[in-house]
């Protein structure tokens, strides 16, 4: 025989006739057991694998539901909460045209937005006083909380902003994101200059020319989310204004309580906020008016 004598001889032996084959079979008596054990092992392994795959949407893992970390360095999905030690905000350096009067005018506008339950937008949505929900989809990442605000849509499937000639400015702007290593970099323009709460932590406010860059990165094995915000706007900031939030990951089984109502027609609330209740207009005498 040419080639591997061991394998060839075993193959050859198994086809031999006569007493030698019987002797070989007698010697191989123990391997039958091994064979059966091996098959059982395969069977068990397949069963375990089947059960694991089948349970992808099967029994709820209550232990995992208590977890507040993640081994995936890009797993931003989950509920995140800011605490008393979560904000690192230096004072902003403003341009001279942003006077005290201009700031007070903005503050009044922000109070009016609260009084009328307007959609509050960025940057309020990132620090709304209750946990925010981040969900990472295939096409976009959404950020929202049960407060009067539009959800933030951060698009991951395009590298350019919507043409400003087409895009209608919003309280959250047009956000696009991409990964640089395990950091999600988000670029936002297209802010509405007046709608919602425009105040930015540390000083200043958003305008139509504001540009925001954010960097999302998981820390502490996914238990913490660092978001670095950098605001640029030649009309507001002398130098780019940066600050950082550390969000704590909530347990996987967390469910947010319902959003609190915001009723712009509640006179007590209106007066509490320092405004005079507005008279409700009577609907005209036409069909469908209410």
């Amino acid at each position: 025989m040419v080639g591997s004598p061991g394998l060839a001889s075993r193959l050859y032996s198994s086809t031999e006739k006569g007493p030698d084959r019987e002797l070989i079979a007698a010697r191989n008596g123990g391997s039958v057991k091994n064979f059966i054990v091996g098959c059982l092992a395969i069977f068990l392994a397949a069963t375990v694998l089947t059960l694991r795959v089948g349970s992808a949407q099967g029994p709820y893992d209550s232990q995992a539901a208590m977890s507040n970390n993640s081994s995936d360095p890009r797993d931003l999905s989950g509920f995140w909460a800011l605490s008393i030690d979560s904000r690192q905000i230096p004072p902003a350096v403003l341009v001279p045209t942003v006077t005290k009067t201009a700031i007070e005018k903005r503050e009044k506008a922000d109070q009016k937005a609260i009084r009328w339950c307007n959609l509050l937008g960025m940057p309020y949505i990132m620090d709304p006083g209750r946990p925010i929900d981040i969900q990472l989809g295939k096409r976009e990442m959404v950020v929202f909380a049960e407060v009067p605000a539009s959800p933030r849509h951060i698009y991951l499937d395009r590298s350019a902003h919507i043409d400003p000639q087409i895009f209608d400015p919003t309280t959250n702007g047009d956000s696009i994101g991409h990964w640089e290593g395990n950091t999600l970099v988000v670029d936002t323009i297209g802010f509405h200059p007046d709608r919602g709460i425009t105040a930015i932590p540390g000083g200043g406010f958003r305008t139509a020319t504001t540009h925001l860059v954010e960097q999302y990165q998981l820390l502490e094995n996914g238990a913490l989310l660092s978001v670095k915000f950098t605001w640029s706007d030649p009309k507001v900031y002398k130098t780019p204004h940066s600050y950082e939030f550390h969000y704590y990951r909530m347990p996987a089984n967390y469910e947010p309580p319902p959003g609190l109502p915001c009723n712009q027609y509640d006179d007590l609330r209106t007066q509490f906020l320092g405004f005079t209740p507005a008279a409700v207009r009577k609907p005209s005498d036409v069909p469908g008016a209410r």
Partner: protein
Amino acid sequence: MISGNSFKQTVGTSSIIRNKAMSVACVCALSLLGLSAALLTRAAQQDQTSTPNILLEGDWVRTDTNGSGDFGGLNANVAKAQLTPAGEAIASRAGRGRGGRGGATPPAAAPASGAKETPHAAGQAYVLVSMPCNGMPGNGMGSFNPDSGGFHLIVGKTQVVWAQERGGSRIIYIDGRPHPDITNSAHPVYNSTGHFEDGVLVVDTVGLPTGGGIPGGAVRGPNTHLTERFEVSPDGQHMKIVYTYSDPSLYVAPHTYTYTFDRAAPAPTYAFEEWCDASDPIEGQSIVPPAQQ
């Protein structure tokens, strides 16, 4: 001591037994392998059916399949709900209309008589909605029965998020969690859980607030279950949601109807923001009639 012949005979007998054992073992092993393969195949199939349909993610707008031309006509083909007396009682309290907006307080202004339509002079607007923007954020009964506003579905690892253009979002948990116990909750909060069946998102919701506002004059109570089936067409451009309300105490038979949607186009699509500022008089009034020729 065994002689040579008896040794051969013993070996021969032993060999026959062992050959049989080997045959049995082989059959056994092949059966086990076959079973293993079958289980693995089934597992693979289950994996396919449980895989979220990524086509679900995207921007959707409701379609007018009745050619009704106005929002009121969109539900014209929804069959009337077959209610029990208890269901009828809720319906009569809620009204049989197409559904309110769930505002936080009842209207304070006097209702319009609605009987006569008075011509308005050029440039004279009339008030259609006395308390505009009330009940925002949210639309379509909290993302259950979407109206004319676009909405956006995001399929995450543990949630499907229904994001609205008027603010607010609805969460559908797809991580296998059970519904919370809401039986003793003074203020029940709806809870939606879902799973994928052959790419169709099947959602079960409990805890809907008691009331009406459901197409076909249907109602909700503390024990009502809503099942929704989100099914995207193979080309990914259309979607239908089949709604089924079940509650033996309120319905003689489950109440079912279907909404249809188109994916927003052309790409790149993105979410609008539907702004409503109740401090702006324009929000509640009609368009201003132009000067007549």
